[in-house]
C-alpha cells in the first residue's frame, strides 16, 4: 500500500514538469459583425511607405493586420478573402522607394541616409489592378495622397495614379467610387482614416498657400494640394463619406488626425543646427545681419538657422520652428544655407504656419468626433496615439518612438509608418474597438513584422 502511495506521489511530482497557463481569452466580436471589413483612407491606410507603394508595404498595412485579427473571431468574425489592390513588385510604384544607403557629402563625411533604390522599378502590371474575385471586390480602397477635399472632384482618377489603378471608373468622383464599392462589398464594419492629407500637403511643402482655411479652388472644385482644405469643405465631404459608409448600416471606427508636426519628417533636423566653431564667423554673421537682428547674437556653438519666413522676410528661426527633413544636406554643409544664405521658406515651418496646422487639426478632429457621436461610431484618437509615440512606447522589449530610423515605427520617408508602426496602429484601433464595442479582439505581435533594413 505504502509503495502505491509513493508511486502516486512521484507521478504527481512529475506532473510538475510541464506547466501550462491556459488563459487564452476567446476572441469575441461584441456588438459588431466583422464579416465584411472595408478600409477607406489615404496613404496611411494603403500601406504606402518609404515614399512609394510596394507589395510588401500593402501586405503590412494596418487594415491587413486588422483583418487578420478580426478573422480570429469565431462568431461574426471577418471572412476572407481580404482584397487589397496589390502592386506587382517591391521596389516602388510609380517611383523608386527609399532604402538606406551610404552617401558622401561635400565635406567628405560619409553618412547612412535614405536614398532611392536603384533596383529596377516594377511599373509594368501595376498601372491597372483588377480584383480576382466577386465582381471586382476590393476591401481596402485607400488611395495614397487622397484628401477629403478630393472626394467631389470629377475625373480624380486622371489626377492620381493610385486611384486610376483600381477605380471602376476613373472619370467619376471618388465619392461615386465609394458608393460603388459599398454597394459591391456591403461592409458590416469599416475603418475610415481621411483628412491627414488635407493638412499634411501644406506642412510638407513648408507652409505654401494660404493656410488659414480660406483657400479657394484652383480650378473648378480642385484645391491646391499644398494648401489646407477649408473647414467647411472638409466638414461637408467628410459627412458625405461617412454617410456613404454607413448606408449599409455598418459599424465602424473613425480615426482622427494626429499631430503631424511630431512626424520625423519635421523633427529630425534641428532648427538650431547652425554650429559655429570660430568666433570670427559669428562676428561676420553678426555684421551681415546687423540691420535685421539687432537683438540677436551669434555665438560659438549651436545657433538657430537664418531662414526666409512665410512672407519671404529674412530672419533667424526661433525655438519651436521646424526644418524639413528634405532640406539638401550639401547646401546646409557647404553652400552656407542657414547662415550666409537664408534657408528657403519651403523647407521651414514657422510659428505662424505651425499655428495654422495645429488649429486646422483641432478643427478637423472636432468634426470627426461629432460624426462619431452622431452616428455612434468608435472614435480612434490618433492624436493621442502620436503624442504617446513621441514620448516612447515600450513594447515587448523595444522602445518605439517618433525618432527617425531608431524609433522603429516610421518608414524612411519620415512621414508614413513602416510595417511595425502599422501594427502598433492596428493594436491601438483594436483597443478602441474592444472598449467601444465590448469585443475581445486579440492584439497582433508587432515585433513579428519587418523593421527598417540596413545595408
Amino acid at each position, binding site marked *: 500500500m505504502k509503495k502505491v502511495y*509513493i508511486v502516486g*506521489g*512521484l507521478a*504527481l*511530482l*512529475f*506532473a*510538475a*514538469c*510541464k*506547466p*501550462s*497557463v*491556459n*488563459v*487564452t*481569452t476567446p*476572441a469575441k466580436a461584441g456588438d459588431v459583425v466583422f464579416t465584411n471589413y472595408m478600409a477607406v483612407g489615404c496613404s496611411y491606410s494603403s500601406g504606402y511607405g518609404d515614399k512609394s507603394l510596394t507589395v*510588401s508595404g500593402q501586405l503590412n498595412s494596418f487594415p491587413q493586420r486588422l483583418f487578420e485579427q478580426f478573422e480570429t473571431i469565431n462568431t461574426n468574425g471577418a471572412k476572407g478573402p481580404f482584397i487589397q489592390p496589390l502592386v506587382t513588385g517591391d521596389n516602388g510604384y510609380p517611383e523608386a522607394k527609399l*532604402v*538606406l544607403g*551610404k552617401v558622401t557629402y561635400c565635406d567628405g*563625411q*560619409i*553618412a*547612412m*541616409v535614405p536614398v532611392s533604390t536603384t533596383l529596377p522599378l516594377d511599373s509594368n502590371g501595376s498601372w491597372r489592378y483588377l480584383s480576382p474575385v466577386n465582381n471586382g471586390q476590393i476591401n481596402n480602397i485607400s488611395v495614397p495622397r487622397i484628401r477629403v477635399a478630393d472626394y467631389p472632384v470629377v475625373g480624380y482618377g486622371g489626377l492620381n495614379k493610385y486611384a486610376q489603378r483600381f477605380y471602376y471608373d476613373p472619370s467619376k468622383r471618388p465619392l461615386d467610387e465609394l458608393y460603388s464599392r459599398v454597394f459591391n462589398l456591403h461592409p458590416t464594419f469599416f475603418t475610415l482614416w481621411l483628412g491627414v492629407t488635407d493638412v499634411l500637403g501644406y506642412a510638407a511643402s513648408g507652409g505654401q498657400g494660404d493656410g488659414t482655411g480660406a483657400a479657394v479652388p484652383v480650378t473648378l472644385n480642385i484645391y491646391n494640394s499644398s494648401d489646407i482644405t477649408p473647414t467647411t469643405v472638409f466638414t461637408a465631404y467628410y459627412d458625405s463619406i461617412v454617410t456613404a459608409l454607413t448606408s449599409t448600416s455598418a459599424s465602424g471606427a473613425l480615426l482622427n488626425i494626429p499631430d503631424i508636426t511630431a512626424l520625423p519628417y519635421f523633427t*529630425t*533636423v534641428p532648427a538650431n543646427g547652425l554650429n559655429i566653431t570660430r568666433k570670427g564667423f559669428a562676428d561676420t554673421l553678426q555684421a551681415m545681419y546687423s540691420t535685421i537682428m539687432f537683438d540677436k547674437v551669434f555665438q560659438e556653438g549651436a545657433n538657430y538657422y537664418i531662414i526666409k519666413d512665410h512672407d519671404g522676410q529674412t530672419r533667424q528661426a526661433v525655438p519651436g520652428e521646424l526644418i524639413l527633413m528634405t532640406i539638401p*544636406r550639401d547646401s546646409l554643409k557647404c553652400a552656407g544655407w542657414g547662415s550666409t544664405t537664408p534657408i528657403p521658406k519651403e523647407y521651414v515651418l514657422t510659428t505662424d504656419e505651425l499655428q495654422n496646422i495645429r488649429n486646422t487639426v483641432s478643427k478637423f478632429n472636432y468634426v470627426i468626433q461629432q460624426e462619431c457621436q452622431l452616428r455612434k461610431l468608435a472614435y480612434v484618437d490618433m492624436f493621442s496615439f502620436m503624442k504617446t509615440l513621441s514620448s516612447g*512606447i*515600450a*513594447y*515587448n*522589449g*523595444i*522602445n518605439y*518612438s517618433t*525618432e*527617425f*530610423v*531608431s*524609433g*522603429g515605427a516610421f518608414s524612411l520617408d519620415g512621414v508614413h509608418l513602416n510595417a511595425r508602426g502599422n501594427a502598433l496602429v492596428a493594436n491601438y484601433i*483594436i*483597443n478602441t474597438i*474592444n472598449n467601444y464595442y465590448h469585443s*475581445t*479582439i*486579440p*492584439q497582433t*505581435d508587432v*515585433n*513579428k*513584422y*519587418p*523593421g527598417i*533594413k*540596413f*545595408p
Partner: protein
Amino acid sequence: MKKHVLTASLLMSVMTSFGAGFQLNLQGLRQLAMGGSGTAWPWDASTIFYNPGGLARLKGVQVYGSMMFIMPSTAYGNRDNSGVTSSNEQSVRQTFTPFNLYFGGRVHEDSRLALGLGIYTPFGSGLKWDDNWLGKYIVQSIDLKCVFFQPTVAYRATEWLSVGGGFVFGAGTIDFRQAMPVHGMLGADVDDGQAHLHGSATGVGFNLGAQIKMRENLQFGLTYRSQVNMDVSAGAATFNVPTSLRDSFPNTKFDSRLPLPQVASFGVGWRLGDVTLQADLNYTGWNSYDTLRFDFKQTTSSLSNVRAPRHYRNTLTTRVGACYKLSNVVSLMAGGAYDPTPVTNGFVSPDLPDADRIVLTCGISIKPARGLTIMAAFEGVNSVKRNGTYDHAGFNGIYKTSAATPGIGLYYNF
C-alpha cells in the same frame, strides 16, 4: 549626419535581471529530500554547506558525491493592453546537472577539530525560449553556472556547541542571448540581429555556522552565508548586425558584477524514535541586488553601458522535512518548502519569470554495505501562476514555472 540616423540605443533591455531564480538549493540529497532543510542536523558531509559547525559532529572521515538533473520549464501567456490573452508559449526543454562533492571529518577520532572541503553548485540553471518568441528582444536564452569551492574548519567547543566556518571561492560562467531589432537588406524580412554576451566570473565569500545540541534528540543550527560578488571581467560581447552597423555595435569586452545574496538561516531538528523532524528558515538578502550594471569596453552612440534597476526584496523561506528510519538499511524522507519570490511587480522579466514557489520533495537512503550509503531524492517545484509586468520593457504576461529534479548520490565513511 550619421548620428541623426541612429541616435538612440537600439539595444534596450540587455540582461536586466540575471540570476535570482537560478539560485539552487540542491547542496545535499537528504536535505533536498526534506524540503531543503538541514541547518540543525548534521546528517553527513554535506553539512559543510548546510552548517559548517556540524562537521565537528561527524563520525569518521567521509567522502560524499551527488548529482542532480534539473528539468525546468516555464509557460508564458501573453496579456495585451486591452487585457486580452492571446498566445501561450513554452520554454525550450533543457536539463542541468549541478553536482556536490564533500570530503571531511575530524582530524583524528578524539579530536575536537574537523577539516573538510566542499565543492558545490549554488547556481546552475538557465532558461531558453524559441529564438523568435514574443519576448525575443528581452531574452532568447540565459544560462548561469557557478561552482563554489569551500575549504572548511569546524571545532567542537563544548559537548553542546560546535562552530565552523569556510572560505568560499566561486567560479562560474554566464551566457546571454538577445535578439536585436536590426534587419539586413539581404535575407528574410524578420531576420533579427543578435547580441551575445559570454563571460566567466569569480568571487569570494564565507560560510559560518553554529550547531547546538540541546539534547540528543533536539538540535538547533544557525548559519550565515555571506554575499558573494561574482565579478565578470573582460567577458565577450558579440553583436551580429548588418555590415553598415558594425561601427555602431563593435564586438567588444564587458565587465559586470552579479551579487549572489547573503543568507542567514535558523534551523531546528527533533528526533522522535524512528522519525526525525526538522525545519529551517532562510532569510535571503536580495535587496543588495538593486542595480545590475554592464560596462562595455568600447561604447558608441548606439551601444551604451547598461544600468538596470532591480529593486529586489528580501525573502524568508520556510522549509520542513521528515526522515523515517524504516530499518537499519532503509530510510525514507519527505518534505516541502514555501519560497517567496524576491522579484517585485513591475520587474517580472522573462529572463527570470520568478514567482512564489511551492516545493515538494521525497527521497530514500539505503545502506547496502558497511560504511556505504546510497541516496536518491526527487524535488518538484511549482511556482504560483503569476500575472507579471515588466514595465521598463513594456512586457506583460502570465507565467508559471515548474521544475522536476531527480538526484542520486552516495557517501562512504572511512
